[in-house]
């Protein structure tokens, strides 16, 4: 077993910094177009395309959670499969903090304002992450990965047992409606419109999720490019060297776990709002907070490129979006419609694509989507600069993002 999660990889340095080069117009224009598309998405899909909006919201949940995990696994080198557990804590935490105390005698609800509850749920997740940090700090690599898996099992059991918080596996409990300064993220009459499209609950949730995702994105990039990020990478690459440079290894590792858990907590709140429901799973393999989700988040991080924040967003689009997109498409356009019982249905095909994506990325582009993107940009910037693809059998990781 190597002593850190990854052997010191030769991280590809960005070939040049922007100060030496003219501004990268391609990048700027692409970012602007993307932002406009995201902001206008409810108008683009219209009131009839709410299903696609729902899908887009789901991708953002994956993105927020994925960003948190990529910091932990890619930047700080700690393999964790416990993400679904923190999602569960976040979702239940939000329901408990914001829940109406009058709702039911059997449920704990503190009736806090929703925004306070969201922040509270995130803080709660961070604290739970901190509680696990001493264990995480002692373990490395795959040992940590499997150890963190026990939290998923624990979550299943706690969710079933503590039904005054979770609502129980039977029916769960309502996810309190989010509201900001009296503006409810629910349907209303009359509803405001943008370009003739009514801005109802799902459209409002989209903007809320987009805000959550953007905040997460910039916070994560800020962390990566700051002192915190440098200390994570120092610990990841060589603990002894990091210590000699004055990095407090235990504290840095714990910090990474706390931050990652907090992101997962926000993703959990989003899950509750997305499903209109907080309900612990009925078993450990299928469900909202299950092992399948643990693997899915890991796939997000791998496909995106370990440690890359933008990569995690693209990974989320592929992993969280693909299956549902296939299903929507097969419903709307009749893809795989003639699949017989037990044949290649949309569900089966999407699983193949998902598995193949993981295999192909690691086979041919261990740096994931992030490496591909970086190469595209680098090539565009200056044809003389050698591409980051050095052909070495190492796994490039992000140093900056």
């Amino acid at each position, binding site marked *: 077993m190597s002593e850190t999660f990854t052997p010191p990889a030769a991280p590809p340095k960005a070939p040049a910094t922007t100060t030496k080069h003219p501004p990268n117009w391609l990048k700027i224009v692409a970012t602007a177009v993307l932002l406009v598309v995201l902001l206008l998405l409810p108008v683009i899909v219209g009131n009839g395309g709410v299903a696609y909006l729902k899908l887009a919201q789901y991708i953002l949940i994956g993105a927020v959670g994925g960003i948190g995990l990529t910091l932990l696994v890619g930047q700080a080198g700690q393999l964790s499969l416990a993400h679904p557990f923190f999602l569960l804590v976040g979702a239940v935490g939000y329901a408990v903090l914001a829940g109406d105390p009058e709702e039911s005698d059997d449920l704990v609800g503190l009736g806090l304002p929703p925004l306070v509850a969201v922040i509270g749920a995130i803080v709660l997740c961070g604290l739970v992450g901190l509680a696990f940090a001493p*264990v995480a700090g002692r373990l490395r690599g*795959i*040992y940590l990965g499997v150890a963190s898996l026990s939290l998923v099992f624990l979550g299943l059991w706690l969710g*079933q047992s503590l039904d005054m918080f979770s609502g129980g596996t039977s029916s769960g409990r309502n996810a309190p409606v989010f509201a900001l300064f009296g503006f409810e993220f629910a349907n209303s009459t009359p509803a405001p419109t943008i370009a003739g499209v009514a801005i109802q609950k799902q459209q409002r949730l989209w903007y809320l999720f987009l805000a959550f995702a953007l905040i997460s994105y910039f916070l994560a990039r800020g962390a990566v490019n700051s002192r915190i990020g440098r200390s994570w990478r120092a610990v990841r690459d060589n603990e002894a060297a990091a210590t000699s440079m004055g990095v407090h290894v235990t504290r840095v590792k714990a910090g990474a776990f706390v931050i990652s858990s907090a992101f997962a907590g926000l993703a959990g709140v989003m899950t509750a709002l997305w499903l209109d429901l907080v309900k612990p799973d009925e078993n450990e393999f299928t469900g909202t907070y299950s092992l399948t989700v643990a693997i899915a988040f890991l796939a997000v991080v791998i496909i995106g490129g370990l440690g890359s924040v933008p990569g995690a967003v693209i990974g989320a689009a592929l992993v969280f979006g693909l299956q549902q997109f296939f299903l929507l498409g097969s419903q709307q356009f009749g893809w795989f419609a003639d699949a017989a019982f037990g044949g290649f249905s949309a569900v089966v095909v999407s699983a*193949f694509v998902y*598995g193949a994506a993981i*295999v192909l990325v*690691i086979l041919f582009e261990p740096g994931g989507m992030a490496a591909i993107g970086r190469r595209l940009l680098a090539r565009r910037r200056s044809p003389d600069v050698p591409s980051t693809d050095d052909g070495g059998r190492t796994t490039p990781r992000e140093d900056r993002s």
Partner: protein
Amino acid sequence: MNTFLQLLVNGLGKGAVYALLALGFVIIFKATEVVNFAHGSLVLVGGYLVYELKDALGWVLAAVIGIVGAALAALLIERVLLRNARSADHNSLALLTIGIDVIITEEVVRRVGADIPFIGDPYDSQPIQIGDLTVFRTQAIALVVGAVLITAFLLTFRYSNWGVAMRAQAENREAAALMGINSSRVTATAWLVAGALAGVAVLFMATQDFSGAGLGRGTHAIALIAFPAAILGGLDSTEGAVVGGIVVGLTEALSAQYISFEFSKSAVFLVMLVVLVIRPSGLFGTKELSRV
């Protein structure tokens, strides 16, 4: 007391199968430092072959083909995919096996379709009564087969050329290569053996007595329980895998009865967690010498 004995017998029988699976993880890990997340799908490949062939060829021949099939599937994964990956990082390769696992599992489950294949024909659902004690034949045979195979393996591992080569490689890959040990062959053999053990294990797993269900996602899930077994014993210890398997089998059986059934799976993971906190490399795992 009867209940306790009964649970003990069941727990040991299952523990033997977990040990076979955990041993597979450990062998591959020792040879390549890769954790094979696709072990569950190797189990499914072996089981599926038995199910497809047993009516035409008879159970014994089908079982042999199943075992060989699982071994070859493992070899194929190593030769075609892992060997050609551009990343040599063991953890990335471990993640690659997750992708393989998703595909194989989905395909086997799709092929099985609406059927519920049970593949323990010669022994399944034929309990033996010893006084008040019921011994499930599947568990009893699993225990015997497990004991024989594991002993055989440990002896081979200790005394054969392959075993020496593999231990050398696990110790120090560079030095082993300098001594003329063919790393490629050692690795291939390790995957073959691990696959074959998975092929044997499934003959007991997809039965009424063992899992209560036929071949399917549930079988795949059982392979996951062998994970804590391997970790608990220490990923690079063959003896550890055996002890880990038995501990997991007994923990599961006893906690289900004496604490609560729904707690039993968490119990397995909690036991593992406690062990890891005390010994971060498992019970018999090699301690890391690097100290910060």
